[in-house]
């Protein structure tokens, strides 16, 4: 079996998602969108257009463009009389009171039309993933009866799918939030989409979901909010200019788009500007529409729509025989739940509970379906939740700074190694000081552990190669190992619980680092400048020793003067970065001059002077000078 996908086959829009590497991903369709309109257009030329393309010709071909097939699937003709009034295409009765769409003389059952949509979704998914797709989980509203569920499954079959399961939309939403892992919970799912509103109360225990009640309004959604705005804007304009923008198709189109955009902007901002230059014209010239809309005004215009959400929530709670206070979780589904007034209402009706909305409300059902598909396809044996290390890990290096090896929020298990060296000549042991935190200086971070590695061969500083490895396993147990590459000697420590700091502590440390970012950067620069200056001083000293008599007297004097200066600055832990940098570059130039002047060792010293072991511009290099202290 290849990959199994999760499909949210919606009334207005459909979404497809799949599990990849243990995480659900929404699939992008062939038009580059994450949502596919659930619309099929049958053209005179015999084409079957799906999605956006079908919508684009809907106005020309209303009797043969089927949208909202979901309102008819699995139902009897006698049940859908009210729905028929709302659609421009013909709906007739087939045998046994079945519902049929009459399109260009032929009769189509709703499942066949849905199958056309499904087939397109599957094709696009296969293209996106680069592999054939045969298995899927499809979601349906919790209130769907057996006939509706069967018909949806049939639609899948007609589309060539092996339907692994039909699951309820609110259940899928709960899965997306991992609520099946949380023991016994009572959940309310509030689903306000483009055209429909559904409330469900579920129970989950031992990973099994049970729907206790459903309620809703089959004709309440974001489209109603848009229409309210369009009407208000048009009325204002009518009052000012005696022109009804709704009468002209073009200006109505622009108005509708602007209204939708304004609604979306008001979910974030308190005020928005609706600006349509040259929206229309009459004998006295062009007319422009420009008006401000505040969130307060929008809320006022749509308050009755928001209030209509109240009844179903109360009914659902009553039918489930629970009080709002007994709810453990509330989930928001559907784009319209982004409207602040809606969120306020939900909080009010659920006893002040903070609803779950971190997963995109337009996609949460598809994501839950994908998770279920993954489980059924045997890919996911219980969702594997990977931990992260909450704070950066590293060790103390020359100058008392912390050199990070593993960045915070790195997914674990993780492993990082870097090579360090000695700070002094003839240093035979290194002290490894393992740290956790975000500050630049070692002393401002949390110590995880200390150990020393001995037996390093005495050599000039920077010669030894000590590889330090930080290794965190899936349980958050950190092992820090130091190994002398030359002798093969190794020491290590193990630290448990480094990923289990209390949340407040983590936040405090991160905030602390942010507050000190300027200070810390300055200190780091100082240390870096000192280290660099010290390194070049050491190099040039060596150069002079090696060259002996060959060093011109004045250059030797100049060099010694600079070296003394630098040594003084370093000893006093100078913070005069510009001065140190200047001395460093002066000395560097001298080093080059000396190297150039020496015909014997010319290229070797030049390389040495500028090589990784001594480059003063320390920051990112392979071998880092580490202040590993000597035994005292």
């Amino acid at each position, binding site marked *: 079996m290849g990959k199994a996908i999760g499909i949210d086959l919606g009334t207005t829009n459909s979404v497809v998602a799949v599990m990849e590497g*243990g995480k659900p991903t929404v699939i992008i369709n062939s038009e580059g969108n994450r949502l596919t309109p659930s619309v099929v257009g049958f053209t005179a030329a015999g084409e079957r257009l799906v999605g956006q393309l079908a919508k684009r010709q*809907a*106005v020309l071909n209303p009797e043969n463009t089927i949208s909202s097939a979901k309102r008819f699937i699995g139902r009897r003709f006698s049940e859908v009389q009210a729905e028929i009034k709302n659609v421009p295409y013909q709906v007739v009765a087939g045998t046994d009171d079945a519902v049929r769409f009459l399109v260009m003389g032929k009769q189509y059952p709703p499942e066949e039309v849905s199958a056309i949509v499904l087939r397109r979704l599957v094709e696009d998914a296969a293209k996106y*993933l680069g592999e054939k797709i045969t298995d899927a989980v499809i979601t349906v509203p919790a209130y769907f009866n057996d006939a509706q569920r069967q018909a949806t499954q049939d639609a899948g079959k007609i589309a060539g799918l092996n339907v692994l399961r039909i699951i309820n939309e609110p259940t899928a939403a709960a899965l997306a939030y991992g609520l099946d892992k949380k023991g016994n919970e009572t959940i309310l799912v509030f689903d306000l989409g483009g055209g429909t509103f559904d409330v469900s109360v579920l129970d989950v225990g031992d990973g099994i979901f049970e729907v206790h009640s459903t309620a809703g309004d089959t004709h309440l959604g974001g489209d109603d909010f848009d229409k309210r705005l369009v009407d208000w804007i048009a009325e204002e304009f009518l009052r000012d200019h005696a022109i009804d923008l709704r009468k002209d198709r073009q200006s109505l189109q622009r108005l509708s788009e602007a209204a939708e955009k304004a609604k979306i902007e008001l979910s974030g901002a308190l005020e928005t500007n609706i600006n349509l230059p*040259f929206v229309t014209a009459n004998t006295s*010239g062009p007319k422009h529409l420009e008006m401000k809309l505040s969130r307060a005004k929008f809320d006022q215009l749509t308050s009755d729509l928001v209030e209509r959400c109240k009844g179903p929530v109360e009914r659902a709670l009553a039918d489930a025989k629970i009080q709002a206070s007994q709810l453990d979780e509330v989930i928001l589904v559907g784009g319209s739940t982004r409207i602040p007034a809606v969120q306020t209402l939900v909080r009010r009706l659920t006893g002040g509970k903070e609803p779950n909305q971190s997963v995109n409300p337009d996609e949460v059902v598809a994501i839950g379906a994908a998770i279920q598909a993954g489980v059924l396809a045997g*890919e996911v044996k219980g969702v594997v939740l990977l931990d992260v290390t909450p704070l950066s890990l590293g060790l103390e290096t020359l100058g008392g700074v912390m050199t990070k090896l593993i960045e915070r929020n790195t997914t674990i298990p993780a492993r990082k190694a870097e090579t360090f060296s000695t700070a002094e000549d003839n240093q035979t042991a290194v002290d490894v000081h393992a740290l956790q935190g975000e500050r630049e200086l070692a002393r401002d971070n949390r110590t995880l552990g200390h150990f020393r590695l001995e037996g390093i061969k005495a050599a000039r500083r920077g010669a030894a190669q000590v590889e330090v490895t930080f290794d965190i396993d899936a349980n958050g147990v950190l092992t820090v190992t130091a190994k002398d590459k030359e002798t093969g000697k190794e020491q290590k420590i193990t630290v448990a619980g480094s990923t289990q700091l209390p949340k407040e502590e983590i936040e405090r440390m991160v905030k602390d680092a942010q507050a000190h970012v300027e200070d810390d950067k300055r200190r780091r620069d100082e240390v870096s400048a000192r280290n660099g200056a010290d390194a070049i001083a050491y190099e040039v000293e060596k150069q002079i020793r090696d060259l002996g008599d060959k060093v011109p007297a004045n250059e030797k004097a100049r060099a010694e003067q600079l070296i003394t200066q630098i040594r003084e600055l370093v000893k006093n832990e100078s913070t005069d970065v510009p001065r140190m940098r200047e001395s460093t570059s002066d000395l560097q130039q001298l080093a080059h001059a000396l190297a150039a002047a020496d015909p014997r060792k010319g290229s070797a010293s030049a390389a040495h002077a500028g090589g990784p072991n001594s480059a003063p511009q320390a920051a990112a290099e392979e071998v880092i000078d580490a202040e590993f202290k000597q035994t005292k």
Partner: protein
Amino acid sequence: MSSSDINGKTIVDVPPIQQSEIDLVREQLRSEHDMYLRSLADFDNYRRRMERDVAGAVDRGKRSLILGFLEVVDSFDRALLQVGNAATPLVEGLAAVHRKTLALLEAQGVTPYHSVGETFNPALHEAVASVPSTQHPPGVVADELRRGYKIGDTVLRPAHVRVSQQP
């Protein structure tokens, strides 16, 4: 448990109860290995897709900006429609700004396409209305209300059109 040495190899007779444990562990190992391979494969596929996507991301970012900019260009189109061909400096200035915007778009590979007189094609056109027309045969775009643009060969924004009605 008995054991015997043959050529330095130790053969151990394993009692049945331990055999079933071994089988269980083998099965678990096989299962874990399988999941590991799936993860690797997923990662590989993901990485390949990310490489594709990154290339697309810059495009998408540009796209978003350009689509917004097109609305401004639309306003210029409408303005010029209103003022017609009056030869005043203001009108000339407007027309010049308009040309500048088109040049800017072209530099990004964005070009307008012509719709009036073309057979209606939902890939290129979004029908806002159907209208009676004596000029155009049925099913042909009679009127353009909003210009369509392509970026390279792909449609960036379909044109809003009025299509000649079937009689």
